[in-house]
């Protein structure tokens, strides 16, 4: 019980960091859908911390909708449920484009994505917008798809006197696995969030390589229609 209480006693900055980092969702869609295809997906997971010595991802969730506009172009829209529970509406919309023209035999591909993240809270009606860009390279082995890539969120506010570091971007590197089934597509992704940031002097015991950035672990499930 004490441990549970302690978990929920993580301090404000740490939790705030977790919630933002949690909003950096996994790459549920790395290969474009077929033209006219619909899909919904959910993901669960977040930055990895050690709690009472046990490595665990912070449980954060999001829901997404995907649509195949063309064979090599898909649209995505979604919302962060954890942010919603805090009274902050967070929606994102974006596009995923396959660089290589897909074919029946295609087992390798590269995709690029662009997303716009919009946030608005109901307490003070503060609005924020962050663009995100990313890419993934993927390879299929039977019904298993493995991928790796990178992405970044970008700052859009540049005050004359920045309150903190004046950081302008939040890069991420990711690698993952997806089952490339007909309808259901489970996935797991490991993400290295903000490797350009020193992850020290925060109260949470982040799991980070060399004290830089934070590892994130995400589980996803997509249903194609």
């Amino acid at each position, binding site marked *: 019980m004490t441990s549970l*209480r*302690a978990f*929920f*006693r*993580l*301090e*404000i*900055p*740490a*939790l*705030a*960091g977790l*919630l*933002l*980092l949690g909003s950096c969702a996994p790459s549920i869609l790395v290969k474009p859908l077929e033209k006219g295809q619909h899909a919904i997906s959910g993901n669960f997971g977040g930055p990895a911390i050690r709690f009472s010595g046990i490595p665990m991802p912070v449980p954060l969730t999001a829901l997404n909708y995907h649509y195949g506009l063309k064979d090599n172009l898909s649209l995505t829209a979604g*919302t962060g*449920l954890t*942010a*919603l*529970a*805090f*009274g*902050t*509406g967070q929606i994102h919309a974006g596009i995923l484009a396959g660089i290589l023209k897909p074919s029946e035999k295609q087992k390798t591909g590269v995709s690029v994505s662009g997303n716009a993240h919009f*946030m608005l*809270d*109901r*307490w*003070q009606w*503060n609005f*924020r917008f*962050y663009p995100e860009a990313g890419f993934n390279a993927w390879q299929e082995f039977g019904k298993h798809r493995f991928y790796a890539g990178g992405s970044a*969120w970008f*700052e*859009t*506010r540049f*005050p004359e006197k920045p*309150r*903190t*570091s004046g*950081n302008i971007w*939040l890069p991420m590197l990711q690698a993952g696995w997806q089952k490339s089934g007909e309808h259901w597509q489970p996935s797991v992704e490991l993400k290295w969030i*903000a490797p350009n*940031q020193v992850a*020290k*002097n*925060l*109260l949470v015991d982040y799991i980070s390589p060399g004290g830089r950035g934070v590892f994130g672990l995400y589980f996803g499930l997509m249903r194609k229609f």
Partner: protein
Amino acid sequence: MNRIVVLLSAILLSSCLRLDSNLFNNGEKISSYQWDAFQGEREIKELPDSYKIPDGQFTELSLISDDNGNKASIRAVYLGVADSIANDTVILYCHGNKNHMDFYWNRAKLLSYTGGQGRFGVMMMDYRGYGLSEGEPTESGLRADVIACLQWLKEKGLKEGNLILYGFSLGSAPATRLAVNNPVMPAAKLILEAPFASAQVMVEDAAKLSLPSSYFCNLSLDNDVQIQNLRIPFCLFHGKDDDFLRYEAHGKRVYEACPDKPGKKQIVVNGAVHNNLPYRMGFENYSAALLSFITGK
């Protein structure tokens, strides 16, 4: 689709999760204050035996704190001769967000030895919801609880110009506000140790992007704004390696926001983290720095 939109909108509008209460780490419950006999964790783990409080220079208090009608009985302690407060200078110490007065007891004793034992009176309190103080901690309650102590000091005859406000970490919020605007009596000097700049800075420093603090909490903590109106001498202590409130993000910002004038100084201690500054600095050096600031010599 419409149902989903309605559902998500309903969640947004009815959501009530906030991190405000996470500001207060008052979970450790006690049945009585143990002072020197306390066996639990302390902010200053070990203080030499020579730092003793003589008989007759220790007063436990129970005060009524009124936060806009929300009254609570809070506990406080005064180190010094209570009957001679009218002739003394008093350091009012506002402790951090963790635990209770037993945790900070060694700090209070150390302060009472500034310039020699008993040269200054020292008062500290447990905010509502901390230690044996009743109620639940709130941002406005912090200020009300410190005001309750100020009223007691005033009733005991403390003279204007003889009050030193000292805020550590969370305690920097009520200390700064009351140093700028004090309804009971003006403070002569303000000391902040490891203060936070604001809730906004706390969020931005962790998130690394310009997220508003309103996404997570409703706190209006804003030392970096309040201190712009400070008109009394100010001294900042901050650990260079603070592992909770980074000096560069918080202490430095507060210090730079304070108007430049004689009596403004900062002491940044290499190797000190959030809660070991006196130890890292050396107790005698720490006391000497305090004495120098308070006396202006």
